[in-house]
């Protein structure tokens, strides 16, 4: 009885010893059992006859600490605000993909950082808000009793993207915009989870999240009450990126994974795994809910270099404006 088991064990160990391993650094939510990671791992391993290993944690800080000796072959889940710093490190190599046919609302030009999914930022509301705002101006004009929770731009990528959103719309007058928003800000949280929890538990009327957030409630909970406020002038675009490491010891495998990112095997895991839009997937391959999800006609976006250059000042404007 035991022999087959032992043999199987040996076979397994032998397989592990010979199969090449691709190490992908990913944020925790990406690789967790509720994220897109497991499906992507299965799909990639089926076609590469290799092993894909996710190493989770703070992706960019860790790679910057490790420098050229990092074990990472590919980094996934970088946020757009990290792009300029990641590029400046010189640790990343070109993705080698054709990015002219992406299904994104803006054209993408960078040849190192490859978008794999996107959403618009949006304020999410529910049936308690009778007249949802249809523009940022309307949001600022909402009654001061409205309770909105946002994330801190010094600790959260979404919070920082909101600051860029206001800079893009209001420029020199951003401070005034924050001051008008201030009475409606219930509080500012460290991360998305605390803020979203406060909204779903009924404490806040609105929360800064993504246009794709309602998809979760519709598909997983059958709850259609939670909606994203779509703005006439457009909502700010939020993009997640992947890049391969220049110093990888598996250049072929890393390149194969970069090729795989824009393929259907990867992209179909995104909608219900990461609750966002795939960067390259034909609309008919999207789940029904995603196809009919309300999205703004336009996307606002500040490119990575500009955003990095104005970051400190924009955060200071935010801090001053909200502190009034």
């Amino acid at each position, binding site marked *: 009885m035991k022999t087959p088991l032992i043999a199987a064990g040996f076979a397994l160990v032998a397989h592990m010893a010979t199969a090449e391993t691709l190490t992908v650094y990913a944020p*925790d*939510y990406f*690789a*967790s*059992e*509720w*994220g897109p*990671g497991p499906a992507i791992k299965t799909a990639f391993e089926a076609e590469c006859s290799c092993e894909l290993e*996710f*190493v*989770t*944690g*703070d992706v*960019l*800080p*860790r790679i*910057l*600490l*490790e420098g050229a*000796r990092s*074990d990472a072959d590919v980094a996934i889940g970088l946020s757009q*605000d990290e792009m300029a*710093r990641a590029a400046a490190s010189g640790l990343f190599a070109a993705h080698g993909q054709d990015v002219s046919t992406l299904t994104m609302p803006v054209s993408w030009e960078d040849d190192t950082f490859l978008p794999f999914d996107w959403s618009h930022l949006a304020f999410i509301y529910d049936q308690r808000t009778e007249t949802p705002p249809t523009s940022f101006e309307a949001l600022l004009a909402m009654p001061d009793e409205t*309770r909105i929770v946002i994330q*801190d731009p*010094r*600790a959260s990528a979404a919070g*920082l993207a909101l600051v860029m959103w206001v800079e893009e719309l209001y420029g020199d007058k951003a401070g005034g915009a924050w001051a008008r928003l*201030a009475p409606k*800000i*219930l*509080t*500012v*949280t*460290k*991360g*998305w*989870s*605390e803020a*979203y*929890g*406060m909204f*779903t*538990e*009924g*404490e806040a009327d609105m929360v800064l999240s993504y246009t794709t*957030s309602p998809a*979760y*409630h519709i598909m*997983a909970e059958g709850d259609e009450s939670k909606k994203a406020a779509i703005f006439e002038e457009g909502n700010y675009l939020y993009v997640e990126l992947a890049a391969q490491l220049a110093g990888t010891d598996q250049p072929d495998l890393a390149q194969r994974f970069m090729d795989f990112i824009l393929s259907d095997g990867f992209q179909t895991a995104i909608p219900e795994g990461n*609750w966002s839009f795939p960067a390259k997937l034909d609309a008919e391959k999207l789940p029904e809910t995603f196809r009919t999800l309300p999205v703004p006609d336009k996307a606002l976006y500040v490119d990575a270099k500009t955003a990095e250059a104005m*970051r*400190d000042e924009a*955060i*200071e404007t*935010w*801090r001053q404006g*909200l*502190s009034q």
Partner: protein
Amino acid sequence: MAAGSQPVTRSLAALAAALVLAVTLGTLAAVAWRAEGFAGVGPAARDALWFTLWQAVVSASLSVVLAVPVARALARRRFRGRGAVITLMGAPFILPTIVAVLGLVAVFGRSGVVNVALRALGLPEVSPYGPQGVILAHVFFNLPLAVRLVLQGWLSIPAERFRLAASLGMEAGAVQRALEWPMLRSVLPGAWLLIFALCLTSFAVALALGGGPGATTVELAIYQAFRFDYDLGAASVLGLVQFALAGVAAALAWGLARPAVFAGGLGGVVRRWDGGGWLRLQDATVIALAALFLLAPLLAVGLRGITGLAEMPATVWWAALRSLLVALASAALCLALALPMALAARRGLWVQLVGVLPIAASPLVIGTGLFILSYRWVRPDEIALAVTALVNAVLALPFALAALVPATREMRAGSGRLADSLGMSGWPRMRLVTLPALRRPIGFALGLAAALSMGDLGVIALFADGDTATLPLQLYRLMASYRIDQAAGAALLLLALSLGLFWGFDRGGRANAGA
């Protein structure tokens, strides 16, 4: 010579102190070394410093002042369920911040129970957001700790003393002056210091209830330096600032504390003869109010989690088992560090300093420093659980010391002299004198260390390993993937396990003491 200064104990204590220094100052040095020096910090960080300081002073002072009547009431009353109240009141201290914030909001929030009641009565609402919210949250977290430490002090006054006071016909006021005030003078500065240091490094809670960017602590600036600026130099400076603040506070507390020793008790049940009549009513009111304040948010967490408990996938239960094992290892390690330190401790400032460093240390600096020190030799994810257990043991050390140091002092003054005269030393002395005398604080220390380790997440962001997630990590993952009901279930499980560990050890420590 007393057992406390045996060479073996002293070397073990020095080793433990060295480990604490390595994990706290050593990791900071590693970050500064990697940054190739310190870097300047901006005006926002200076504003943060001011806010950090004043909220920590107010939160710590309020927690300690409120703890005195609560601990006194618990010390002089016996009632059914007293043990359960004491255990449950310890729970806020061990909650993960995100759970505590949602629990507090459910009670004190704009849509919370309190405001719903106020509205129904036609009274103006209260807002938990702003400086008052930060202080509310910090008192919620730390009042239980203060109560436990002060209560520990009360229980250290031997039953014989109260009997003597009663036979001398002393009223409550006289008992206060003769017995209780000296005890408080010895216990309160230390308790204040611990809570001050805890509030110093608070970040997510302070922000969530602070209501805006004004509620920024130094720890947030450190997070920003790591996460957005990758400015290790600035992070090092800010980490050093936290240590300096805690160092000044430690010196202050050390200067104010006057150790009180009530030698010569037999460890019997304390019966009190003072405080009848209206004092009974006062005590009952104080206990009821404290229990309501501390337990209502917990009840909210518990009720919210019941439905989610059944829906949790198996991986959450596995994570719970893993967390349990880490907590047990961490508690054992913590005791192994704390016991020799407590036995070797005289009334030195260094005990106070080493005892507060781990709390004043930024979890981010510790995590990053350990990463810098280790990643060249080992894969961080392979040592994730071991690092978690080690760091948690060091982080829990101050609390263990706070419980053990006063008790060893008393032991030395009491049974220690007899043991000296009998020439007892080594293991027989440990088994026959030391461990029985320290049973209660050891149980408390083990319970606290285990419970704290259950809830911790802060340090391991760089070491996290997807396959060996702990329960708090699974909880955050559930939250991050919109599964709030299941996350609430995980929170309830975490709360129950932490309380179970705390109760089990604490109970074990008190088993023979008749309390």
